């Protein structure tokens, strides 16, 4: 079995939003839509305040509430863990959007472009009227993943089979791979680092992990030097 997951290393993310731009360019999402965005968060109490950049988007949950509530079966979960939306089935009721605890879903009723009424070249090329009036969200670039796999490439390793946001990350903060493969890049990262998932208490089993520290090894203390 395969489960595609994404990892964001919070120690590395610099909040440059290149992933956001890459996603928008690849998927030609409208101006008000960001399938991949990076939150700018302040954490802690003065004077011990830290600034943290947190990439968010669809978490491709193993138990996605959006799929359960969807009345049209437009939202489905593939065997490899990617949660998809069938634009031909979706009725645009918005139920999935209120069921998603990650605010990852969007619905736009009218076409809009970055610079007014005239679409840019990529927007014109990628414009899909099927996306109007229905729910949309991050696809984990499933078309790139599928096309890459068909060519024998390895998603997360070979850029042509890897989501655009991961490819574009200037800091090496974003990673993509198969969590079920113990030798994969993401499995190693999860093994070597402390990690968490957003709102785990809700039981959705998200497929998006955040690294925040190295796994504590014997003889070391977290967050500082060795003993």
């Amino acid at each position, binding site marked *: 079995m395969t489960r595609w997951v994404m990892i964001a290393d919070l120690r590395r993310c610099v909040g440059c939003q290149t992933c956001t731009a890459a996603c928008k360019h690849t998927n030609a999402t409208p101006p008000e839509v960001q399938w991949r965005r990076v*939150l*700018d968060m302040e*954490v802690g109490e003065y004077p011990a305040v830290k600034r*943290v950049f947190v990439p968010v988007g669809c978490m491709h949950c193993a138990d996605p509430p959006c799929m359960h*509530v969807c009345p049209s079966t437009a939202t489905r979960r593939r065997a490899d863990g990617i949660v998809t939306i069938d634009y031909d089935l*979706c009725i645009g009721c*918005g139920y999935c959007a209120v069921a998603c605890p990650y605010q990852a879903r969007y619905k736009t009723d009218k076409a809009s472009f970055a610079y007014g009424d005239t679409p840019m070249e990529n927007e014109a090329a990628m414009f899909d009227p099927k996306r109007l009036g229905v729910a949309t969200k991050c696809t984990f670039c499933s078309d790139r993943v599928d096309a890459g796999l068909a060519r024998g490439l390895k998603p997360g390793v070979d850029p042509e089979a890897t989501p655009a946001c991961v490819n574009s990350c200037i800091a090496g903060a974003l990673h993509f791979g198969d969590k079920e493969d113990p030798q994969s890049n993401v499995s190693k990262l999860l093994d070597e680092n402390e990690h968490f998932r957003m709102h785990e208490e809700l039981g959705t089993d998200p497929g998006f992990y955040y690294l925040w520290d190295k796994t504590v090894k014997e003889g*070391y203390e977290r967050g500082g030097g060795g003993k």
Partner: protein
Amino acid sequence: MSYGPRPWIQLHWDARAALNFILGGTGSGFILFAAFVPLSPHQSQAALLIGLALVAAGLTAVWIETGRKLRAVHVFFNPMTSWMTRESFVALALFASGTATLWTGAPQLAVLTAAIAVGFIYCQGRILRASKGIPAWREPTITWLIFWTAVAEGAGLFLIFSALAGVPVPTPVGGGLVLAVVARGVAWSAYRRRVEADLVPKARTALELAGKQLYQLGAIVPLALLVTGGALSSFATGAAVLAGIAALGAGWRFKFVLVMRAAYNQGFALPHVPVRGGRK
């Protein structure tokens, strides 16, 4: 503490969705009372028609909100897990049974229609409960709060209907209203106790005010009016109408606030802060 984008109010469901909960609940509650209160055949038919029309109006309002209206039939595709699909199927059954009741006038069918109306209210409660992204909705006790609110609204509307139809306040409706407003108050209390900690201050404030009105305007005022009407027979009809309006209005306001003012999302939170810097 994390300060990023704070939870914000959901914008995916607006007043049209709220109308479905308001009109659908009131219509279903009204149908429930119409089945058990002795009325003339003509009055029974009128009552059932009003109830069905309210449910239909609510569903129409939410249909107008959908992005792809011509695909409305797709709403029936997921009865396995979606409470919206189940609500749609129950609505179909409600209209079929209601039409048969209107056609035949059979009291057994009226009871069946009332049972289906109860199912419709239950589905509405479960629709909110399944909305995991909205803390004010996903609390399990919301189901019973929505249920008893709908019953109280139905009883309130029936009191108004009785007055307009020139029928003395039927005892089952008066008793039903008392039961429903008390149960609604208890359900609100249980819901509030459990949900309070999960809400952002603005959502809590909005719900507190609407909940207070459920007690004061929606329970104490109608009960006082019914008692007064019982003591002063000349005021009985007026008291019943006012009690009905109070019970109905408090419920409508609460649902409006629940969908439009208290529906803040979860926001984002970091259970751990990144540890930066090298190690020796």
